């Protein structure tokens, strides 16, 4: 009875984590094509969702360890119990929701690691965590990923601008939009193959721990299916706040920059995953965008926003660890503790959701795409759109080149079905 309850709870929570992972990371692939108008917002998230779904089915190798070596699992180490996984997932989900509320792109895997670390420290003591691995797998990559991606993005952007230097009135740079579609799609596909696997691994290991699967067995097909759909649904829902931050909050992205940034993200992510130096996609994507911003003369980087993002990266691990630790502490009460955990977790998540509605960056599925579209218009295009009376939802991008997360625009509710500014964006 006991073991069944915990298994069900872990599976439900793992799937919700998969969902938050999806909508947290839509921005990595799709923020720049949405910002430059290469794809309409709805089309972009649909493409990303489909590619995540496909990618999840393509990934054959499911993680053998939950924590990737950060916690001393297995022989001679601690036994990771389903309770620990549950508490860790609560930490990861709560932190993911919080960073989403603040529009901060942070790594979902680091949140998961953090939650598990917190839970493991409470459940099995400080010695269960390999802090050397924490340093080499989480802390240093967090410094290096944006650095590499920034240099690559800067170089690519400078090259692109040099090669397509304007000689007469003609500009060929609009053509970069088509290229963006391909590079962004690659990022989305890579995300699907990597990240859905993690949840599949967590669920499979829980089933093994609960005695419902034999050890060393792969994930059952239904696990693959539900994980694939959870991450695709999350991606389709689209974390518009994070898309705004990465598409317009860091710097104003032009098609040339968008293409260069996305090409850098793709190249860096693929190189890192195939040459044995794992980097977080989220951090690479943010670094590429900053590099691309530095690469265009006259473009401004909002270093305040960039700073907040970096701070979020570094507190992701300790913050989700703290939540995970508290959850693990409550879980020691037994079944009652688990139920309390689940209830408190649900209340916190619901609370974050309610707060997000009060300060809506997204409002109803039809309108939210307009908000996303108008808030990332360049000033010039926005003025033109206003003149033509095409802007129904003058989000802050119309007045300011970037969206501040602290004072979101007054939501102007547009009637559904009104022609949007999508044509202008294109």
């Amino acid at each position, binding site marked *: 009875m006991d073991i069944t309850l915990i298994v069900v709870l872990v599976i439900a929570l793992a799937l919700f984590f998969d969902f938050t992972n999806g909508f947290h990371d839509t921005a990595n692939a799709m923020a720049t094509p949405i910002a430059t108008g290469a794809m309409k917002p709805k089309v972009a998230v649909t493409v990303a969702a489909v590619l995540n779904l496909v*990618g999840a089915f*393509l*990934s*054959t*190798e499911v993680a053998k360890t939950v924590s990737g070596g950060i916690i001393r699992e297995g022989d001679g180490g601690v036994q990771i119990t389903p309770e620990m996984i549950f508490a860790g997932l609560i930490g990861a989900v709560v932190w993911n929701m919080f960073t989403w509320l603040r529009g901060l792109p942070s790594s979902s895997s680091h949140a998961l690691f953090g939650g598990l670390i917190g839970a493991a420290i409470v459940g099995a003591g400080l010695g269960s965590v390999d802090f*050397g691995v924490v*340093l*080499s797998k989480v802390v*240093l990559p967090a410094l*290096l990923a944006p650095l*590499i*991606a920034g*240099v*690559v*993005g800067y*170089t*690519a*952007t400078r*090259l*692109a601008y040099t*090669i*397509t230097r304007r*000689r*007469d009135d*003609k*500009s*060929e*740079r609009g*053509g*970069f939009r088509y*290229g963006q579609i*391909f*590079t962004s799609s*690659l990022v989305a*596909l*890579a995300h699907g*193959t990597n990240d859905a696997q993690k949840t599949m691994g967590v669920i499979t290991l829980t089933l093994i721990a609960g005695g419902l699967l034999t050890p060393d067995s792969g994930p059952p097909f239904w696990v693959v299916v539900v994980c694939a759909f959870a991450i695709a649904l999350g991606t389709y829902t689209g974390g518009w706040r994070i898309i705004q931050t990465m598409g317009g909050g860091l710097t104003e992205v032009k098609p040339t920059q968008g*293409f*260069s940034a996305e*090409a*850098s993200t*793709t*190249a*860096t992510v*693929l*190189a*890192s*995953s*195939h*040459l*044995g*130096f794992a*980097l977080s996609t989220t951090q690479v994507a943010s670094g590429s965008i900053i590099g691309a911003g530095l690469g265009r003369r006259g473009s401004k980087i909002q270093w305040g926003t960039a700073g907040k993002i970096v701070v979020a990266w570094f507190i992701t691990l300790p913050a989700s660890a703290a939540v995970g630790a508290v959850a693990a502490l409550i879980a020691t009460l037994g079944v009652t503790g688990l139920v309390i955990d689940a209830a408190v977790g649900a209340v916190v998540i619901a609370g974050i959701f309610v707060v997000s509605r009060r300060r809506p960056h997204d409002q109803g599925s039809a309108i939210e795409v307009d908000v996303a579209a108008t808030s990332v218009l360049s000033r010039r295009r926005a003025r033109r759109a206003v003149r033509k009376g095409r802007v129904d939802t003058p989000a802050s991008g119309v007045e300011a080149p970037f969206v501040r997360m602290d004072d979101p625009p007054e939501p102007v509710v547009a009637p559904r079905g009104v022609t949007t500014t999508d044509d202008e964006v294109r």
Partner: protein
Amino acid sequence: MIDWSAFVVVALVALFSAAALVSLYSLGLRLLTVEGRTTARTAAGYACFVVCALGVLYGIYLIVPGFHR
């Protein structure tokens, strides 16, 4: 503790592949929009895009584990 040689390899490979892809695509755009297009230029422009497309296909090859394991 941290594999610096792997890090340098990743950085260089990423730098060169991204630079190559972006350069080729930009060159293709330039060749196809330049004044006074000749057949040779048009062909060269399309050739650039074809090479870019091959790069994207190679990316898909790398992403899909079934292709190389």
